[in-house]
């Protein structure tokens, strides 16, 4: 299952105000690497950089490297995809992230931003979930 995590998921995992559902989500992804794969864009990297300490950002980059998550440059994403979501009423940054998620063909965008993403599932061709809802739908497999 291909996932795109909004920057708030990483910030609530690697930052100084942790949210347990976001941390549990990251841990679940780590526990089942054959089941989940991540994609991330440059914009999300910049969001995280702006909201965590330098040391935490360094660990965040090492985290991505350890999982072999390649960073997609924003310029690769067709402009029209973001523009489509702009016309649907999203703000520019959110429109880009939605366009990026569609472009990579992700199954699900996970975000704590209910106002712009989670509360408007019909706007998107992919699932949008909070970490908590995703974990409810995909409980950890016990071995």
């Amino acid at each position: 299952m291909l996932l795109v995590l909004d920057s708030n998921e990483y910030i609530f995992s690697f930052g100084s105000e942790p949210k347990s559902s976001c941390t549990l989500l990251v841990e679940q992804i780590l526990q089942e690497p054959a089941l989940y794969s991540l994609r991330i864009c440059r914009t999300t990297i910049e969001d995280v950089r702006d909201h965590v300490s330098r040391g935490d950002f360094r660990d965040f980059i090492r985290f991505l490297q350890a999982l072999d998550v390649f960073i997609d440059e924003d310029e690769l994403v067709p402009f029209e995809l973001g523009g489509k979501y702009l016309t649907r009423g999203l703000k520019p940054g959110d429109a880009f992230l939605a366009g990026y998620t569609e472009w990579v063909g992700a199954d699900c965008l996970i975000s704590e931003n209910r106002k712009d993403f989670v509360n408007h599932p019909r706007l998107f061709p992919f699932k949008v979930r909070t970490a908590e809802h995703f974990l409810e739908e995909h409980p950890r497999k016990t071995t």
Partner: protein
Amino acid sequence: MPRMARPKSRRPDPKKALECLRRAQERNRRYGGPTKGMTEEEIIASVKEKRNARWEAKFAART
């Protein structure tokens, strides 16, 4: 799925990735960070504000 040139893939190392997460969590317990004391809503709003500011300029340049 878009096709593009990507670096040669390495085998993912979830154990090492978890170590990175734990190290960041421990650092935050000791020293805090730029979002210390902010509510969840404030952090989400801050991310949105900065991201939208960057992308407003990019979209404006393309339209």
